[in-house]
């Protein structure tokens, strides 16, 4: 997790650069700005959950459940938490017993707020602020063209969404506290999350200067900052889900975004010893029956999980965090709380 550390080994030399000549190239200036921003932020204790955390993975791996579990856990520890639903399918809202989360943060429980990202409305309000003249924006939005173009144009919606998310973790003037200690974003599937995290760079490359470019830079710096932004990759023991996690990891590594320990969700508990497994296999060879077939299913599922844990361990160079399959007990409040406790270990934290 600490590869970032090595780049910061000579802080004094880098700081000296701050007072350098003014006519440095834009790229250098950017690089320096980013570095400076990082230096101002203290490197976090290993266990800290970054203020802005994206929970991502293939559809159906349990991103919403994990988000809810982690959000509740952090709130219980006294942090002010905002859970953000991006998928728009209401799965996070459902976990809090609500039909839909509101588009402005609203309280879900003590110190825990929830909000839903409504992309289209966000894009509209962004351009409304930009254009300032109400009649212009009305015409613009009424045309339908506007939405077609912004939806298709690369990175525009992503940029607006990021800008929106950043407001909640931004610290104010004179060190005023951010609105939330932790913002946990649930549910952009891996591809979407990548687009989101890549947007400032991608758009930044297309837009060399101007106010948009500097916003872009600010966002890129925020996403690069390991003390501020992190990504929790979630998979389940299935080929495609794990492959997607590995691909996302490679892409995020290139971007320089901080990755927490990956989570392998829905891992079946080990029920049978090696001797048991041999015995079951011998018994089945003689006479199969439902009792043994059920055991074989359990053993097969566990074997699959081990294989995927191995794949993740090899790719990440450290062991992934297995979380238990909950369906047999049902996803109830106690199970979610237990999941929250286990999840701390993804951040090298207290629960370890």
């Amino acid at each position, binding site marked *: 997790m600490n590869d970032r550390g090595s780049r910061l080994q000579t802080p004094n030399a880098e700081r000296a650069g701050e007072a350098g000549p003014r006519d440095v190239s834009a790229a250098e200036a950017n690089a320096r700005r980013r570095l400076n921003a990082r230096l101002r932020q203290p490197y976090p204790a290993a266990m800290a959950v970054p203020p802005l955390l994206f929970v991502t993975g*293939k*559809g*159906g*791996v349990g991103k919403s459940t994990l988000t809810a579990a982690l959000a509740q856990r952090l709130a219980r520890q006294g942090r002010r938490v905002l859970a953000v639903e991006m998928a*728009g*399918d209401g*799965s996070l809202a459902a976990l809090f017993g609500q039909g839909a989360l509101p588009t402005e943060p609203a309280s879900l429980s003590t110190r825990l707020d929830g909000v839903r990202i409504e992309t289209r409305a966000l894009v509209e309000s962004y351009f409304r602020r*930009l*254009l300032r*003249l109400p009649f*212009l924006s009305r*015409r*613009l939005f009424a*045309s*339908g*063209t*506007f939405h*077609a*173009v912004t939806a*298709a*144009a*690369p990175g525009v919606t992503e940029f607006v969404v990021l800008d929106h998310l950043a407001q909640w973790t931004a610290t104010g003037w004179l060190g005023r506290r951010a609105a939330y200690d932790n913002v946990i974003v649930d549910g952009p*599937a891996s591809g979407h999350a990548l687009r989101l995290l890549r947007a400032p760079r991608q758009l930044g490359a*297309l*837009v*060399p*200067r*101007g*106010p*948009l*470019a500097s916003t872009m830079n600010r966002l890129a710096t925020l996403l690069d900052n390991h003390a501020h932004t992190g990504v929790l990759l979630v998979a*389940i023991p*299935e*080929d*495609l*889900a794990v*492959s997607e996690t590995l691909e996302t990891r490679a892409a995020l590594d290139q971007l320089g975004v901080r990755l927490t320990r990956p989570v392998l969700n829905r891992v079946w508990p080990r*029920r*049978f010893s090696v001797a*048991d497994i041999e*015995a*079951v296999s011998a*018994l089945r060879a003689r006479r*199969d029956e*439902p*009792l*043994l*077939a*059920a*055991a*074989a*299913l*359990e*053993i*097969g*599922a566990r*074997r*699959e999980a081990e294989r995927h844990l191995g794949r993740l361990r090899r790719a990440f160079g450290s062991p992934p965090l297995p979380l238990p399959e909950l*369906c*047999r007990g049902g996803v109830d409040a106690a199970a979610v709380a237990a999941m929250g406790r286990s999840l701390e270990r993804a951040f090298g934290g207290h629960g370890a």
Partner: protein
Amino acid sequence: MARDPAALAALLQQRLVVCVGAGGVGKTTSAAALGVAAALVGRSTAVVTVDPSRRLKDALGLEDLSTTPRTVALGNGAARLDALALDTKRTFDRLITRMAPSSAVAQRILANRLYQEVSSELGGSTEYMAMETLHELLHEGRYELVIVDTPPSADVRDLLSAPLRMTELLASQAIDFLKAPASIITGSESRLMRMTLGTVLKALERWTGLTLLRELADFVAGFEHLVDGFRSRARDIEQALHAADASFVIVTTAEPRTIEATRTFDRELRAGGFPIAGIIANRVYEFPPLAATAGRQVPPRLREKLLANYADFAALSARDRAALAALQRDTSSALLATLPALEEPPTSIAGLRAIAAQLAGAEPESRSRPRGAQ
């Protein structure tokens, strides 16, 4: 083990089968197994997969899957079965090349920086390309049956309206807007208004950086020539999807999340007038309550573990049974088949054949013959 042999047999006689369903329900495997079943009853078949796993490639006996059809070795007696995978970017490039009025126009689009950035990410392009590939295959007429696995789109409307949306985007005033931004605000003849607008747009250009708007304009203007082609293809695809020889299959598991998605798929497909053949339920647990004597021959300590484990699976089975029964009550779609949970996903053509046999009726010789329900 529910199965509707007549409906399944009829399904394999169709010309186009579209498998839809939430992500992670085994849609691709089901599509492949349906392909095997179809080839085994003598239909020459193409299976289009979206995101095939390594294992599925292995199961199909293919080194790799690409946009070029590869033939699956099924052995004697079977008709031809080809498999191909969707490649959004390459399909898009091919489409541009084919539809552009001249190769110069094609080159201009393909070389545009924006096109290169977005061709695989353009709104709904994966969905569009699934539909486009389907169109190509139906048009070629090389296959009696085309089975399409679909991208795990959260919204079936996104998928099926992709061709139309793409056309709308290209045909919309977007092009005019980008060529001359002032044209978007129509109905105002006042000079003052136009001047104000001019200023605002200048500001906007400064804000976005001039090059972006220009390049975007160039990109979209290039597409302008393609609109008619896109539109007629979109119509063709619409027709093919609604035809009497097309069927939709919704693939699901018995988990609450996918059951819910299936309800939505069913509702939306119906609303769109798409023909639904029925539902395939995957990875269903079917472990009925045990006789008290079960496992008597097993050493007591192991037997205890086995019984506890079985109790879990019996509970899961009861849950699955109830969920599927509720699904059938709520939707008017038939349950075509329920497939049992497997110890591991199919890794060979034999594994796919076993699933195909369960779908098409021949009893699998596998000893883990499904038991229990119905």
